């Protein structure tokens, strides 16, 4: 595993949530939904937005 891959793995967060739906009381349904969030991509988006706010600031 290369350094880039290791950093990427460290920078990637797996977040999830559980939704419980009950139709038949004897057969509850559980749905697991997982979302993969790329932290590096989020930081880049945040940087772009904050740069835009600062550059367009009213003096």
């Amino acid at each position, binding site marked *: 595993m*290369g350094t880039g*891959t290791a*950093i990427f793995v460290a920078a990637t967060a797996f977040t999830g949530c559980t939704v419980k739906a009950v139709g038949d009381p004897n057969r509850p349904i559980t749905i697991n939904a997982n979302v993969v969030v790329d932290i590096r*991509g989020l930081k880049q988006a945040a940087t772009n937005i904050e740069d835009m706010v600062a550059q367009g600031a009213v003096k």
Partner: protein
Amino acid sequence: MKRFYTVLLSASLIFFALAPLGISADYNFKKMTPEIDQALKNRQARYSQLQDLKQEGLLGENNKGYVTDLKSNAAASSLAGAENQDRRIVYEALAEQNGLGRTGLLEVQKAFAEVQHEKSAAGDMIQDPSGNWIKK
């Protein structure tokens, strides 16, 4: 369940293959709504004043992507409230429009907090991940 793990494994393999190439997910506003546009303009309009209050130590950047009134100053508190309201619009829109969901919103806020800390000027107050306030 087997299908779920197959999809998860496939997604992971794609990420691992792209990582060395420096490719990351592209998060942005898919649709610039009037609400987002207004929030960004509001933030630009108060930016200089916000920086001044941060330099005076009245406001600090917390670890959740928002500003905190540190000395119970009325003017600073009012500005922080308005700024945080606009930031929330931006964060929620980014999470929602990129399908990140409620838990993704926390990651969005965390990413913005890190960027705000990096961009803070020397002397500004910032809150570290463990909750302690430090002067940058």
